């Protein structure tokens, strides 16, 4: 009977990459939930505070776009086995990620100083939404920074030579993804508060 065949199972796409895509769909739904809630709340017109976005968000947008470029170059360097360049580039990427969150934070302070309370008593949902949504996004960026730190440590561990490009590819896809989420949020906030 010839019912048995080789153990080879078909893996069209690397399982980690695939899981990442499903995970990203999940994260996307969460932000879709947040922004739809924002629209629903804003449209009911009840006590909605109008305010302008902190100008520093423009800088943070540039920073995160730059970081997407650096991680793209880092992946390329890894594939060329140019490890020194690779390490420098992921360090820069991680630093830009941290810088991004710091800039977002100064944006919060700017709002606070201009009379827009994000949380606490007498805060307005308009400000709170901005705080919570960008805050949750910042956590996702910081999660990416942690991943980069792990990759960085691995790149120094010379005992285990690792030629698999999967980890850096997964990390960079995720990084572009949180970048895109911010672009989406930034455009969204600009349109709805215009």
């Amino acid at each position, binding site marked *: *009977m*010839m*019912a*048995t*065949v*080789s*153990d*080879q*199972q*078909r*893996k*069209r*796409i690397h*399982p980690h990459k*695939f*899981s990442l895509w*499903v*995970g990203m*769909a*999940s*994260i996307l*739904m*969460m*932000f*879709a*939930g*947040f922004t*739809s*809630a924002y629209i*629903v*709340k804003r449209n*009911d017109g*009840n*006590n*909605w*505070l109008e305010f302008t976005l902190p100008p520093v968000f423009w800088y943070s947008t540039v920073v995160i776009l730059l970081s997407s470029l650096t991680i793209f170059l880092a992946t390329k360097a890894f594939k060329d086995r140019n490890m020194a360049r690779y390490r420098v580039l992921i360090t820069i990427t991680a630093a830009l990620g941290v810088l991004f969150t710091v800039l977002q934070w100064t944006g919060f302070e700017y709002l606070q100083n201009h009379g827009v309370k994000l*949380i*606490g*008593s*007498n*805060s*307005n*949902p*308009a400000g*709170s*939404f901005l705080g*919570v949504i960008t805050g*949750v996004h910042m956590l996702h960026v910081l999660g990416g920074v942690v991943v980069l730190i792990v990759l960085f440590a691995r790149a120094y561990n010379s005992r285990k030579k690792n030629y698999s490009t999967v980890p850096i590819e997964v990390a960079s896809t995720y990084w572009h993804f949180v970048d895109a989420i911010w672009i989406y949020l930034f455009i969204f906030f600009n349109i709805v508060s215009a």
Partner: protein
Amino acid sequence: MSNEQIVHTGTSHGTIHGADDHGHGAHHHHETFITKYIFSQDHKMIAKQFLITGMTWAVLGGLMSVLFRIQLAYPDQNFPILETLLGHWAKGGHITAEAYYALVTIHGTVMVFFVLTAGLSGTFSNFLIPLQVGARDMASPFMNMLSYWFFFTSALIMLSSLFVETGPFSGGWTAYPPLSALGSASPGSKTGMDLWLISMALFVVSQLLGGLNYIATILNMRTKGMSMTRLPLTIWAFFFTAVLGVLSFPVLLSGFILLIFDRNFGTSFYLSDIFVNGIGALPNEGGSPILYQHLFWFLGHPEVYIIILPGMGMVSEILSTNSRKPIFGYMAMIGSLFAIAILSFLVWAHHMFVSGLNPFLGSFFVLLTLLIAVPSAIKVFNWLTTLWRGNIRFTPAMLYSIGFVSMFISGGLTGIWLGNSALDIHLHDTYFIIAHFHLVMGVAGIFGMYAGIYHWYPKMFGRYMNNTLAYIHFWVTFAGAYLIFWPMHYEGLAGMPRRYYDYTNWESFKMFAGLNVFISIVAIIVFAVQLLFLFNFFYSMYKGRKVASQNPWGSTTLEWTTPINPGHGNWVGEIPEVHRWAYDYGKDGKDFIAQTTPVGAGETVNH
């Protein structure tokens, strides 16, 4: 009836290694008690962990319903035993109002999430996906293990909330604000609600980890020859279940995050114009509790399908196997699952017709809601036509599958009433709703679970459950379920609202006093019969009749080509190749042809 009377065609035995072979799997490694039973990464053990945890919660949740049914039947009597059991929650043998609401809330929460979500899809997705697609384990066994332990922790935290001084959360399983957002709103809104939120957040993480794995395994790890259209319908159902979960639970999480901010950081997403007795007016302005309802029901409606789809898949499989006929309309079954999955994201506002939703908007949701009846009806017709003129074997699993179809029809028909906003304005928040969703989701869901347990028990434990006990269990539960929930339709039509502690002050509902006693007594009997099931389940694990052949039900699917007690890795030697769909029953005069059998020379080809 002996389960061994099945004729084997002799065509499916390509991988048999002797009947009582204990599989040693390809990845045989030495396992300690801890790695084998506790932090196991074997999908079959994880499935059993989900099952046992789910069953534990089913007992707790069922017990809660018995307690609050006692209150509804005898609102003016005292039962000293209740005080012994519940202490100050039943002072003088009479359940307090606070305790009643807590019981109802936790009953709903754990039945929906812990029993019918984790216990059902957690168990059977884990158990059946690798076995039926022909994989050694899940795409990521480690994440799979994490999924269980997140669930376990979540369940433990929910359990702990039963013991805090102010009691568990008591604002209903949907946790609407302001009761869920303000600690000062009620005792249950304090620590109990904090624990509820933490527990549910962990539960969402568990579902995402699990769902991700199920999807990855189904799409990437199928054995050679197992094209998507050769998959058993169980796998299709688990696939859509996982997709629904992965896309809707994050939205619930976003709702919870906003709720956490309202509770703990003074924001006003859901709060506005509130006056609390003893505290005065709250500063919160501008929020909207309706917002929470949108976020909750955007998950909440897909969630009810997350509960029912696994049952649908397993029932399709069991009905076909035990009618010895191919499933009727295989592609239509997949198509209707797909349609249900899509539509379930577009109907959530039918839970909010009476919330102040714009009636114009509401009419769109009426239309979309009624559309769901189409794929639902397709499924029902296909099940009935599968049974039609079949060579039916009334195994306990088969009875539960037929029971599932019966419950789904009875409860689904009232869904069509409720989907019309004009009727729903009258019926919303009455006992009619309780009747609707218990039949269509609660009882049908648990029937799907029982069907699955009875059918795959031999694969899980290498033994059979006792049939006599199983038949008693089925008939009492089946009759009981109708006796409990059917009369509730009449109560609801008469306008009797749900979620009340005591109806005796209402002149109009006095006529239901006797009916309520009746319902409660049946509920207690049905609960007792579930204990019989538990006994059967655990007793058979050690003392049940041993399974003597690899394929006791004469099934076509891959799980029955593994050794009777498969080890980690499932197949000894290589994974079998698949040559046909899963439903070749009664084809070309053969009783069944296993999926592993190559298509013969003059055979009529359909897949």
